[in-house]
């Protein structure tokens, strides 16, 4: 630190992952995306799909809010209104929030944070994406096929009776479930098998811990949703009777099955958000995360607890009193790991050198919104209170504070945080801050009044209401439009940054984890030379060279990335192209290194792995696996 910082300019000789096919015919470039096995490209396809779904779900939300501007009919009738809120819920839950952080951003960032060249099963990764696409298509197709008016929960027996396109939607949900399972499986194996030597479990970034906890739930809870919607589908066309009371079946069993998945699903939504927030708060406070181990353990314990509390959605569904009490008590235990996280984040902020960049604004919004969402959840966990509040707007406000106020806000924070890394472009920072503020105020204006009217007895999902609630509904509608405009603007300026944004540096925020050592945007196998493991969340050795430009002493800085300059790229011998199903293994000259049993020098494992990935020059780097020890 004492010596003058020295920057070494090492031009990146490989093309980045976005421009690999530049200069090729359009068909090749298209195939390079559609059949890619590169986790970053798959993640970006997810991301654009999810942003599209977000706009669709948001449009339905605005239609719902517009209809509720006044009692009685405002723009649509009851049946159409039922379809609006159902599709809003189904699209937002299954298409946006569940895959949002783990499948899109997790896919792009997680392997780079691990220092890995790719996820463990690239083909499975691609098939997850196509399962998601097919599921999303079916879910959207349910609109022309008669819509869906069951609520996203698809409760029986109504879902067996309604004339709307339940079968189309459940098929979609089934596929989306398997997409989620395969993504989770892929993440678990990647985290287990691709951790570099020297990166122990407690040197993992907390984002990875969160994705790990999420993946456990994805693998263990989602199959139950799969079989449930499968049985529901069979029920629809073959009348098998398991959930049909007319044939002796039990509709409450459906609720048990559904919530056995869907409660963990709520945590599938929130835990990755918590992981992201841990990263953001630490980076933008320039301080190590307070209580790292507690935050890590609390993610996993939330994942385990999530399997034990599903009954709290069914307090008024005729469960036994004992079951109600047990589920109520277990629900309170969820408060413990959640509170651990909040306190640790606050402690991290304390005396930190806080930088109010756009991602940090989202992170601070998250802290407030998640606290409100979490605490109102405890109200609902109290049996007696829940009987009063069940199926009111209080519940709607509560889960929007968690699912949207927390998860979506964290998703936006993460998107802004890593956007420069994987697109290579900076977005418009002032627009970013304005929109982040707009999201925060718009959100609170939308949902705080809903707590009040919920507590006063306004039932959820109603098309008409008593005039005494009108003022709250109108506030809520105004807030929804502020929120909608902010979100829409965010998506727009992010897209615009592809063309107008200035080029991003390798480490614009001064992050300490491995992804900030990768080129911006990363190359095909993420690193052009093996990254160096530094102490995680230690910002002392990071030097701020300029605005949005940080680095460690001796680290290379990103040269002009050949983002839009096709011709230059060709010079590099690109041996393996993403997008071709069978990747050719690198034919390296240093055969002896590859041959024979490896692992004589354990610390060099990460190095060796990445060297293979870098594949161009065997002698390019003299990397160090740990900070001090030089590699032999």
């Amino acid at each position, binding site marked *: 630190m004492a010596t003058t910082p020295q920057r070494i300019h090492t031009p990146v000789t490989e093309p980045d992952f976005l421009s690999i096919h530049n200069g090729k015919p359009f068909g090749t470039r298209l195939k390079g995306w559609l059949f890619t096995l590169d986790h970053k490209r798959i993640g970006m396809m997810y991301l654009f799909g999810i942003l599209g779904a977000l706009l669709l779900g948001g449009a339905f939300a605005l239609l719902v809010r517009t209809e509720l501007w006044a009692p009685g009919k405002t723009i649509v009738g009851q049946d159409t209104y039922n379809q609006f809120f159902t599709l809003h819920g189904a699209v937002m839950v299954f298409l946006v929030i569940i895959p949002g952080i783990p499948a899109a951003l997790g896919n792009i960032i997680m392997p780079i944070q691990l220092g890995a060249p790719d996820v463990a*099963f690239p083909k499975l990764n691609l098939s997850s994406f196509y399962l998601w696409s097919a599921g999303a298509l079916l879910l959207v197709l349910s609109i022309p096929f008669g819509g869906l008016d069951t609520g996203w929960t698809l409760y029986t027996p109504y879902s067996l009776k309604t004339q709307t396109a339940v079968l189309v939607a459940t098929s979609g949900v089934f596929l989306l479930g398997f997409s989620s399972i395969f993504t989770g499986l892929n993440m678990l194996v990647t985290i287990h098998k691709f951790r570099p030597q020297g990166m122990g479990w407690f040197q993992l970034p907390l984002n990875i811990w969160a994705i790990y906890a999420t993946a456990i739930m994805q693998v263990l809870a989602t*199959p139950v949703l799969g079989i449930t919607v499968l049985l529901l589908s069979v029920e629809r066309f073959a009348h098998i009777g398991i959930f049909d009371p007319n044939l*002796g079946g039990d509709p409450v069993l459906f609720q048990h099955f559904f919530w*056995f998945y869907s409660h963990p699903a709520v945590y599938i939504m929130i835990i990755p958000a918590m992981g992201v927030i841990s990263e953001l708060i630490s980076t933008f406070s320039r301080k190590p995360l307070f209580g790292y181990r507690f935050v890590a353990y609390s993610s996993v314990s939330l994942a385990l607890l999530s399997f034990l509390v599903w009954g709290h959605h069914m307090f008024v569904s005729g469960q036994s009193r004992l079951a109600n009490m047990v589920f109520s008590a277990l629900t309170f235990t969820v408060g413990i790991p959640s509170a651990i996280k909040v306190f640790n984040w606050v402690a991290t902020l304390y005396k930190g050198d806080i930088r109010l960049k756009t991602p940090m604004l989202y992170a601070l919004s998250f802290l407030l919104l998640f606290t409100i969402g979490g605490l109102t959840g405890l109200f609902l966990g109290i049996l007696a209170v829940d009987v009063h509040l069940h199926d009111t707007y209080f519940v709607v406000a509560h889960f929007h504070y968690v699912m949207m106020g927390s998860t979506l806000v964290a998703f936006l924070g993460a998107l802004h945080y890593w956007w420069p890394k994987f697109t290579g472009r900076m977005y418009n920072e002032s627009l970013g801050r304005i929109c982040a503020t707009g999201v925060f105020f718009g959100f609170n204006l939308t949902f705080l009044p809903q707590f009040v009217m919920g507590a006063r007895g306004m039932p959820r999902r109603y098309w008409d209401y008593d005039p005494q609630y009108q003022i709250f509904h109108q506030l809520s509608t105004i807030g929804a439009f502020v929120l909608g405009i902010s979100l829409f603007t965010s998506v727009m300026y992010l897209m615009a940054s592809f063309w107008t944004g200035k080029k991003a540096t390798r480490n614009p925020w001064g992050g300490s984890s491995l992804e900030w050592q990768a080129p911006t945007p990363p190359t095909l196998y993420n690193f052009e030379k093996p990254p160096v493991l530094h102490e995680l969340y230690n910002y002392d050795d990071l030097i701020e060279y300029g605005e949005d430009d940080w680095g460690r002493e001796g680290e290379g800085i990103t040269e002009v990335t050949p983002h839009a300059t096709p011709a230059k790229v060709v010079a590099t011998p690109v041996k393996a192209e993403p997008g071709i199903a069978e990747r050719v*293994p*690198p034919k390296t000259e240093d*055969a002896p290194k*590859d041959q024979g049993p490896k692992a004589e020098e354990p610390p060099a494992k990460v190095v060796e792995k990445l060297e*293979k990935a870098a594949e161009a020059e065997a002698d390019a780097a003299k990397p160090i696996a740990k900070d001090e020890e030089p590699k032999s």
Partner: protein
Amino acid sequence: MSAHGTGSRFIQHHYDDAKHQFDAGKLGIWLFLAQEVLFFSALFVAYILYRIHHPEIYSYAHKWLDVKMGAINTAVLIFSSLTAAWAVRCAQKNQRAGLIGCIVVTILCACTFMGVKYKEYSHKYHEGILFGRYFDPCISPGGTELLTKKNECPGSKTTVEWDFIDDETRGKIKSGCFEEKLVDQDPKTEGVQARCTVTISKGTKKGADWVETSSTPVPLQCPEEMFGEAESASEMPAAKTAEAAHKFPCWRTASQPAVCPDLTKPDEAISGSAARPQVGVLVEFGDEVERGEDTRIIAKCDAPPKAPDAGDIFADKPTSLATGKGTIHPVHEMTTHEEHEREAAGAPPAHTNMFLSIYFAMTGLHGVHVLFGIGVFIWLLIRSIKGHFTEDYFGPIDFAALYWHIVDLIWIFLFPLLYLIH
């Protein structure tokens, strides 16, 4: 390709070496299997819940499953698990012929399993032993070969004609099922006392009418092995074995031979409340296909003599406890087993279709997994013939074998839970 250090061209470049790829794959397949267990778990939970709440459904309906078929399938699957595991060993030892042989045997076993399953399913389909709404409530107890299975219920297929002449409507032939109250019973005698005759009627069908060309009486009652009725054993020729009875029809009277709910009231039919005990004839004689369309079984029953007018409702009861020990009729308390036996001989309990719903859901989903396994093994067979698998690269065989084991394991749970219960 072998110039590459990892030994097999199927080692993907982002792995360090063959072992790294294998380890990742192994963890992946174990997670997938955990997912599979959870996928089936909901069905097991449904099985447990319905069995706790309605044990009578299970003890009644499991008799429609053929233990023999189930046992054959269990044996076949266990054997195929052995060959699948053996295939892994052959791949590890570079024994290509052995590998191909093991995979072929595994595929054949899987196909045998599906063949047996097809036979079971198609039989149930023909008999109307189906799930949910398609369950035919006119199902007789005691076995699938009884012709009364498809008795003449309203809305059901006719293969047996029932005639019954009771006191009130003497002279008129009623066909169909008969409610117990129409039969006067001697309260001291157990069982049905109607006098029945059964004839094999040969003829042709002319529109809705039956033109009879010949009629042969069936005098025999069935031997005891068939029904386990000790009291009728003495009347039967010993030579009449079950096999013989299949060729030569036999019959017996029984209470509740069939359940013919009043299908004109759909609500009651679905809820089972319309299922009342009835009296009729159980006829054992081939099925419709074996018998041919020109043959019908016609059973006619006369009502038994009326019981003496019960002027004194206590006539057959001890007048008082004080009359002494000898006059008190010993009451036989039924054991649980006997209760089940009696239930099993009677009308199906309400919602018997639930057993079949669960049976079809579980075995159906398992069957889909077997089909998927066949696909995977065919793919592996092609790759083995091409010689892709070596001691460096046998992951797919190992993972498929693990998958196959869990399919096997699930069946090992299904077989006792569905076929072997009492």
